[in-house]
């Protein structure tokens, strides 16, 4: 089966041939791949070149952190690719975005109101944690729908703080 793998603006066609070989855009590479025990860290030798990287699953794919650089990678097989293409035609351009607490903390301020339209980058919540005031910003333009917390409130990690439509 072919995988279509995207890194930034570049797309690769990758086939896993066997335990020690992959085909990358038509060329066969010798690959010696080792997960390190108990860690999301992988050591890989590709035609003798040695790399070690964190590979962390994200919502849309993987983050690969390697030699001090971060790569956002999406991996899809052919079936998934067709499925996604079909879905994207059906979906509205935007949908609800829940702003979640990236860590436990104290809500220091809620500088927006329900119903307010916000730009990408507008500060939605100020969360205090690790002695720092951290500004949580809108990832895209939209409208503040439900605000579920108030200033002074303690929140758990991943708790939904408000919704941007």
């Amino acid at each position, binding site marked *: 089966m072919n*995988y279509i*793998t*995207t*890194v*930034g603006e*570049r797309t*690769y066609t*990758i086939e*896993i041939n066997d335990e020690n070989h*992959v085909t*990358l855009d038509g060329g066969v*590479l010798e*690959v010696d*791949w080792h*997960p390190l025990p*108990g*860690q*999301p*860290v*992988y050591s*890989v030798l*590709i035609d003798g*070149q040695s*790399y070690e*990287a*964190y*590979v962390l*699953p994200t919502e849309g*794919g*993987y983050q*690969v*952190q*390697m*030699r*001090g*650089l*971060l*790569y956002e*990678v999406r*991996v899809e097989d052919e079936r998934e690719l067709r499925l996604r293409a079909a879905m994207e035609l059906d979906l509205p351009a935007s949908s609800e975005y829940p702003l979640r607490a*990236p*860590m*436990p*903390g104290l809500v*220091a301020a809620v500088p927006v109101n329900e119903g307010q339209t916000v730009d990408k980058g507008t500060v939605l919540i100020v969360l*205090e*944690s*690790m*002695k*720092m*005031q*951290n*500004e949580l*910003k809108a990832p895209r333009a939209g409208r503040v729908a439900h605000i579920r917390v108030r200033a002074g409130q303690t929140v758990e*990690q991943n708790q939904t703080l408000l919704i941007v439509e």
Partner: protein
Amino acid sequence: MFKKVLIANRGEIAVRILRACRELGLQTVAVFSEADRQALHVRYADEAYLLGPAPARESYLRMDRLLDIARRCEADAIHPGYGFLAEREDFALACEAAGITFIGPRPSAIAAMGDKMAARNTVSRAGIPVVPGTEGEGDLSDEALIAIAPKIGFPLLIKATSGGGGKGMRIVESQEDLPGLLHAARREAEAAFGDGKVYLEKVIHAARHIEFQILADAEGNVIHLGERECSLQRRHQKLLEESPSPFIGANEELRQRMGEVACRAAASVNYLNAGTIEFLVDHDRNFFFLEMNTRLQVEHPVTEMATGIDIVKEQIRIARGRRLRYTQAEVRFNGWAIECRINAEDPYNNFMPSVGVLSNVLMPTGPGVRVDTCAYPGMEVTPYYDSLLSKLITWGESRAEAILRMRRALEEYRLIGVKNNIPFHQALLDSHRFMAGSFDTRFVEDRFSIDDTQDGREVHPEVAAILATLVAHHQTQLSAQLVQRGQRDTSNWKWIGRWERMQR
């Protein structure tokens, strides 16, 4: 002379102080909050006592409990570390009253330097240049500050009178922004220090933050151990420090002049023990007294590496009434040292703090590498305290060697399970301005982005693609196997799932 030291702190600095005590043959007492029972400082100490719940005000800031524990276990000295109670005159006084040696300056010096306005007045009188601002004008109202601001000129800085570590600090670009930012700064200062007093200070353009480490004994001898370059900051938090400063470099005359002023500033408050004089240095090498930190500094290791002097041991010796072991002429500077602060912050997501369990740690080692850390495999990073996980320090015969060592050490360092700012440091060390040593206190925030630096560096998107694809492929296969196994014996499903998760 005291024999048992209570360390009124946590994290890497508690471990650092424990080591110095142990190497001097002193008994050590750790204190801990409920969040820190398994912390290294508890495990390394001879004795350890619970202070209270995780929040600092219920544990590490509880003077009464600290003194009570010291009395009960017969500790005859207290080292406050940095932060928490380190710069609290009342704590130093309370130690004195209880007959316990406070390993630090006299209470009067803490007080004199603790109020930033009073401090600026004191050193001004001793003939030391200070940055223009509302120092010495007392606790001014918003209205008064807004009236004075245009005379100082923009941009200017709002600073908390009781401040430190960037809390309650704001840059003001124009008169219109001043009222709103005054409000925000006072709110933050009130929350951090229980004191909303602020003052204004002129922003020095292209300023360097350069500080001098000083040591002073009870006989009044004061020496300095050279400077530290601390201009690389983000939101007034230092990120990378070095000693010597590339800005001073081979300019021995400037170093000597600043060092003398630093010693004079310390002497002006009859200083005792270790302290740090912070200067702002402008483009033309004019320098201004900024403040004095009356405590051990986070970045003290770069000075230790460049001088060979163990500052914490010197603190203890001074507190035991010993004379300084070095004259100024005997302090020898050798090579170059750099420190990177490794914080539990996501450099790809606006330096958002990260919490969780450090499932694995692999430290860089080898020649010229030192790590001061509280991190160990299995440690839980909690949201209660600051995000400092580790200080990575490298030494080289030259700045170039120290930088190259730091690069390879950062590349080796693995802290698995919690996001950290190692990639930020890697990008910073690769930037041309850092390598050239030409940066000021605004550099990181205004002219540096971790994303920009990806351009000039060797990238391997195809390797990232192959790795992610292998991981995805492997997980798909694993799920398929799980489903098959589950079909054979569904009653075991729950256990298989658990077991498989642990195998990953």
